[in-house]
């Protein structure tokens, strides 16, 4: 195998010429390049850090060591969800032995020069990477969105390497940074799915579950979808769930996503093995995501906004709530979003209707990664495939998966309400 070659600047970083913090970060980038078999490094223009969510002492030790050694980020860098909601103190019921280091971790990343965005949906910000830019994003839903919807290029970066890439401004020249690795590997024919069905974000999440299972770590090309029904919230739901049930880091939708539109008659995009996706497969995914829940029990909560609720989703929610009664007092509607989007939504007047009916807003974190729900909130409904996938493992609840409209009807009555017409 050919050896990794560094430029003079990169070698200087590794040798400590830019300080010991940069040298530590470069050791990690170089080690990863060797793991991946890369022969050179690649400059990046942007980074998104997932390491700011507390998973134990090791993550804190790593960030504090970099900060103590004087490192700072060299490209615009955003921060993912943390374990705490700094705008609503007392909402997160994390015990002090976890809350104190979780807060110290957030402080360490700010000291390293990253922006305090605290969101898993950095793509909802006004500053976002452009088509073709090489970036280093962590957090599986952010990765798949950046690659698929923005057409920026990022490998599946994880904890530790995200901040090291941000500090050095370099990543290994490998994986999804290489144009030839971005071609589709399987065609998923969605022409049998009705337009009405594809109007619901949750149906796209169920589609994402099927896409993840069908594609594994491959690159699916979805065909047979009318572009007029697609928006960024639906692509967000698709990607987040496909990255949970599989390892999907890039998908294409014919006629919609940027690389699919620019592919033209590229022969690499034709003659792929094809799987027909049916409405029945999506209903199967819906039922699998609801496994374990007893629908006859009272519904204790509804979880919205995983990944973080967008401005447009707040608008759609406000419209859906017009003329409706308050939520049932036994059912709490939780909405996860970023502090940036919350400020915009409040400014636009999209938040009050939900709050007037009893909804509670969470920022900086998410209801399935840290203790926010009360112990008596046992059965929870959600239109988010990612929340449905991880919450039973993370916080021990039973999940019912359904569309936003099913969730809102259920929240009003305090019982699970199904509408099969939305799933056909």
């Amino acid at each position, binding site marked *: *195998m050919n050896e990794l070659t560094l430029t003079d600047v990169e070698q200087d970083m590794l040798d400590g010429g830019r300080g010991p913090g940069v040298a*530590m970060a470069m*050791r*990690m980038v170089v*080690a*990863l390049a*060797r*793991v*991946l*078999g890369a022969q050179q490094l690649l400059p990046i223009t942007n980074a998104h850090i*997932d*390491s700011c*969510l507390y*998973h*134990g*002492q*090791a*993550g804190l*030790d*790593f960030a504090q*060591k970099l900060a103590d050694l004087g490192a700072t980020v060299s490209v615009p860098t955003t921060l993912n969800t943390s374990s705490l909601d700094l705008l609503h103190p007392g909402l997160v019921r994390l015990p002090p032995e976890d809350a104190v280091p979780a807060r110290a971790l957030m402080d360490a990343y700010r000291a390293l020069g990253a922006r305090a965005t605290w969101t898993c949906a950095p793509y909802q910000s006004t500053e976002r990477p452009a088509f073709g830019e090489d970036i280093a994003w*962590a*957090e*599986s839903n952010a*990765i798949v969105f950046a690659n698929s919807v923005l057409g920026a290029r990022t*490998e*599946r*970066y*994880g*904890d*530790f*390497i995200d901040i090291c890439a941000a500090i050095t401004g370099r990543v290994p020249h490998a*994986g999804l940074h290489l144009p030839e690795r971005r071609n589709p590997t399987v065609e998923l024919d969605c022409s049998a799915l009705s337009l009405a069905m594809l109007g619901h974000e949750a149906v796209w999440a169920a589609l994402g579950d099927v896409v993840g299972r069908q594609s594994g*770590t491959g690159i699916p090309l979805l065909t047979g979808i009318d572009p007029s029904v697609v928006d960024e919230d639906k692509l967000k739901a698709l990607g987040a769930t496909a*990255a*949970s049930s*599989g*390892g999907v880091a890039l998908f294409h939708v014919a006629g919609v996503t940027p690389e699919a539109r620019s592919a033209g008659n590229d022969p690499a995009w034709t003659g792929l093995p094809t799987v027909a996706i049916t409405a029945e497969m999506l209903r199967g995914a819906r039922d699998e995501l609801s496994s374990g829940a007893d629908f006859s029990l009272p519904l204790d909560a509804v979880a919205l906004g995983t990944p973080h609720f967008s401005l447009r989703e707040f608008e759609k929610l406000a419209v859906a709530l017009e003329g409706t009664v308050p939520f049932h007092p036994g059912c709490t509607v939780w909405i996860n979003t970023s502090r940036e989007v919350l400020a915009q939504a409040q400014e636009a007047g999209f938040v009050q209707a939900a709050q007037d009916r009893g909804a509670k807003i969470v920022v900086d974190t998410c209801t399935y990664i840290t203790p926010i729900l009360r112990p008596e909130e046992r059965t929870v409904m959600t239109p988010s495939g990612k929340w449905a996938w*991880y919450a*039973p*493992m*993370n916080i021990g609840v039973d999940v019912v998966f359904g569309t936003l409209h099913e969730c809102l009807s259920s929240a009003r009555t305090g019982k699970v309400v199904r509408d099969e017409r939305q799933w056909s």
Partner: protein
Amino acid sequence: MSANGAERALSGTTLCAGEASGTLLVLAEPLSFWGGTDRKTGMIIDTHHPQHGISMAGCVLLMDASRGSSSSSSVLAEQLRAGVGPAAILLTARDAIVALGALAAAELYDTHMPIVLLDAAAATALRRNAELGDYSAGVLKSFARHISVRADADGRADVVLAYPTDHTH
């Protein structure tokens, strides 16, 4: 009969250098360390996973690659810090998320968990050993429970299967 029993060696490629040994644990399906394993005990807690309830602590883990969340690197590093991580990991794909957990633990705590890339034939030999025992050379050598892994910084890695000494003869 050797005092140490019989051995069989497989070669691979070093992804992370180190030396370790332990009991072989073959993952039946990909696993997300984050959400799927307990950071304080090393137990597999993913209820979707067929090996739910088994501990990875101290095992030589054979897996194709990880799945799901990119937070898995932190969980693995924390398990290595707490001494409940795998002893070594054998992969069939160059998995960055798994490697980064080991690289961070090495940077912080001088803990060097070896990660080795195996080709399909070597991985199959290990899987067959775990399921059926090793029939190499036409003779059943019984299950190799103990696996030693040595991954050198120059890229060369050896995985040695040690078979228990037969005391009945």
